[in-house]
């Protein structure tokens, strides 16, 4: 009888494991884009894009619902660190039915492909996207050489 009960428990345990894995799969799928899909963990911090516009590097970071006061930017040489906090905002007088957006602190850091001039970096937060314009350091810029 006990053997049967433990078998039953084991089966339920396997079902739980399966369900958890499916849930994780679907939550990843929900957040994924069909291009460049590589199962990276989304809990690791905000998503970012980096592009090179010639004189500048442009870094865009998804930060919905985060105020600029709650974001810290640190740049040195070719190292960038973005950290911040998503604060709880339970509206007054309401009860919560479903909470998916969460409150958490995050940090992401990068080593850029080249050094940037930290003094002239511009940062703009608009519609939940932080855009950094990172001017390349003089030494990192392409030089045109005249052939004599």
């Amino acid at each position, binding site marked *: 009888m006990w053997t049967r009960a433990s078998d039953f428990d084991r089966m339920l345990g396997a079902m739980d494991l399966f369900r958890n894995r499916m849930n994780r799969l679907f939550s990843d799928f*929900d*957040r*994924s*884009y*069909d*291009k*460049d899909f590589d199962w*990276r963990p989304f809990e690791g911090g905000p*998503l*970012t*894009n*980096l*592009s*090179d*516009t*010639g004189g*500048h*590097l*442009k870094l*865009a970071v*998804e*930060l*919905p*619902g*985060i*105020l600029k006061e709650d974001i810290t930017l640190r740049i040195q040489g070719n190292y960038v660190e973005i950290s911040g906090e998503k604060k709880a*905002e*339970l*509206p007054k*007088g*309401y*009860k*919560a*039915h*479903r*909470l*998916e*957006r*969460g409150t958490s602190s995050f940090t992401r850091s990068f080593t850029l*492909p080249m050094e940037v001039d930290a003094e002239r970096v511009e940062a703009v*937060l608009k*519609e*939940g*996207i932080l855009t950094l314009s990172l001017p390349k350091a003089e030494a990192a810029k392409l030089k045109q050489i005249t052939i004599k």
Partner: protein
Amino acid sequence: MSDRKEMILKEESMPERTKELPVIAPLVDIFENDDQILLHADMPGVAKEQISVHVDNGRLEISGVRKLDTSGSEIWKEFDSVEYKRVFSVPQSIDVPKVNAELKDGVLKLYLPKAEAAKPKVIEIRSA
């Protein structure tokens, strides 16, 4: 010659092709009090003009299109132009004409007021 002109005209009148964008579900918080249901949805990078909210027959659909301008050469890309879309069942008692939406810091805040008939009533208990 006239055929060619017609072809060009047709091309110009083609509607914007947002269908090709990948569709993802935004993360959502749902709150409620006696007067209304309040919904917060993360939609970073979506402009106000690109948001649509439909409430019809107990079905609420929110969607927003994000179009990123891509300048320069890409070094890495973790997010792209996308359509955020999510559908919910809502009580029939929502006062649809009074539904209100605001977009701030990449978060859509949607206020769904309850019709008068759906609000809880305070019943006074009389002593016998």
